[in-house]
């Protein structure tokens, strides 16, 4: 089988016939939503990001614009740009939209107060009314193979940044509190889905699912995930073919979860997606680190480090991808 394997090269992930791939996904979506799930249409959360935009376009092609509802789900830390771009996308594809601000629900859950309480245990001076904050991984996975550790960064009103490694208790509390955001969005998506007898479309790409960059029962809660087997570079290929607005294609992927601006690379992935895609493909398909290194012009040791990082992320996040475990009667 190995003898037939294509030699690794920089363009190995390029989809040759994008139109065919789009038609395949939309055909499957139509079948799944209308037949397997027996729903009349679909609801999708749109954030102005590339993944939700491509998922929306594929869903419209599959079900027709009249059967798709786009929900914008901002909260007080969301960038206003997200709402503008999501509306532009909805206008382009002619779907109905609704804005549901989830800040009130998040206040009710204590999302912000629980998160801020943990941050203040690290930085006493942190005042959420004037400071901004974010958490992220600062290590470079190409250079060493220690597991990732998260740091918290606060930004004062003058723009000065302070950063510290997060102790385990504070890290867990910040993540648990922040995850109310994705879970509240999921709850609202299902409200509209049930009200309309629709299915919920999930929008994660392959990396988000496989590396565990999603919230269990949050953005990981959906009925169908049309792009979950696509690499990020492939999502961009589809975006161009589907006519996604240029501002969305050019926008740097952000987490849009914390008040300070932050890219997805800074928050979690630690690598530019073009490079990450290729190394992941190499790792997942059993390519020798040396072959990938020479095709990408990188030292072999760096590729080995990233392979380890991928292996570790996939293992440690397996719990997120698991369905509830049913204990069988004896």
């Amino acid at each position, binding site marked *: 089988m190995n003898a037939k394997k294509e030699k690794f090269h920089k363009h190995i992930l390029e989809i040759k016939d994008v139109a065919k791939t789009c038609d395949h996904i939309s055909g499957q979506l139509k079948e799944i939503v209308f037949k397997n799930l027996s729903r009349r249409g679909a609801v999708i959360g749109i954030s102005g990001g590339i993944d939700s935009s491509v998922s929306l376009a594929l869903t419209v092609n599959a079900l027709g614009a009249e059967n798709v509802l786009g929900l914008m789900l901002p909260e007080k830390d969301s960038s206003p740009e997200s709402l503008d771009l999501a509306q532009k996308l909805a206008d382009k594809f002619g779907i109905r939209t609704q804005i549901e601000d989830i800040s009130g629900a998040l206040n009710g859950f204590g999302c912000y107060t629980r998160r801020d309480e943990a941050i203040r245990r690290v930085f006493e001076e942190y005042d959420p009314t004037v400071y901004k904050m974010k958490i992220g991984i600062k290590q470079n996975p190409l250079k060493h193979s220690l597991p990732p550790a998260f740091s918290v960064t606060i930004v004062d009103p003058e723009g000065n940044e302070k950063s510290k490694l997060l102790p385990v208790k504070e890290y867990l509390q910040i993540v648990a509190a922040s995850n109310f955001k994705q879970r509240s969005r999921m709850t609202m998506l299902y409200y509209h889905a049930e009200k309309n007898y629709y299915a919920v479309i999930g929008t994660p790409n392959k990396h988000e699912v496989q590396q565990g960059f999603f919230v269990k029962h949050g953005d990981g809660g959906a009925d169908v995930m049309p792009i979950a087997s696509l690499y990020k570079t492939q999502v961009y290929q589809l975006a161009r073919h589907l006519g996604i607005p240029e501002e969305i294609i050019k926008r740097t992927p952000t987490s849009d979860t914390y008040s300070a601006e932050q890219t997805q690379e800074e928050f979690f992935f630690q690598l530019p997606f073009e490079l990450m895609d290729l190394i992941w493909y190499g790792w997942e398909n059993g390519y020798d680190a040396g072959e990938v290194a020479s095709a990408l012009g990188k030292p072999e040791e760096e590729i080995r480090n990233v392979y380890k990082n991928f292996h570790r992320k996939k293992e*440690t996040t397996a719990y997120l991808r698991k369905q509830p475990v049913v204990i069988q009667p004896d």
Partner: protein
Amino acid sequence: MEQHEISEKIREYIKAASFSSIDNLDDDLLIFKEGILDSMGLISLFSFLEENFSIQITDADLVEENFESIKAITNFVSERQK
């Protein structure tokens, strides 16, 4: 605290914190490369070291040379306590 006391304390902690069953946890065993501890294990280890040895760990300390094995961690802690 003597070096061997530090390393024993660290060894006991890692044994208790690891999900894998380890009989021999040598000083030179590469605890992350061998999967003895994962990412949650690493940040829990930082909290353990800060609380038990009264040291501070920063982003700049996050290199393999400081944490790859019990020997490396012991040297790192001893240096910090000087």
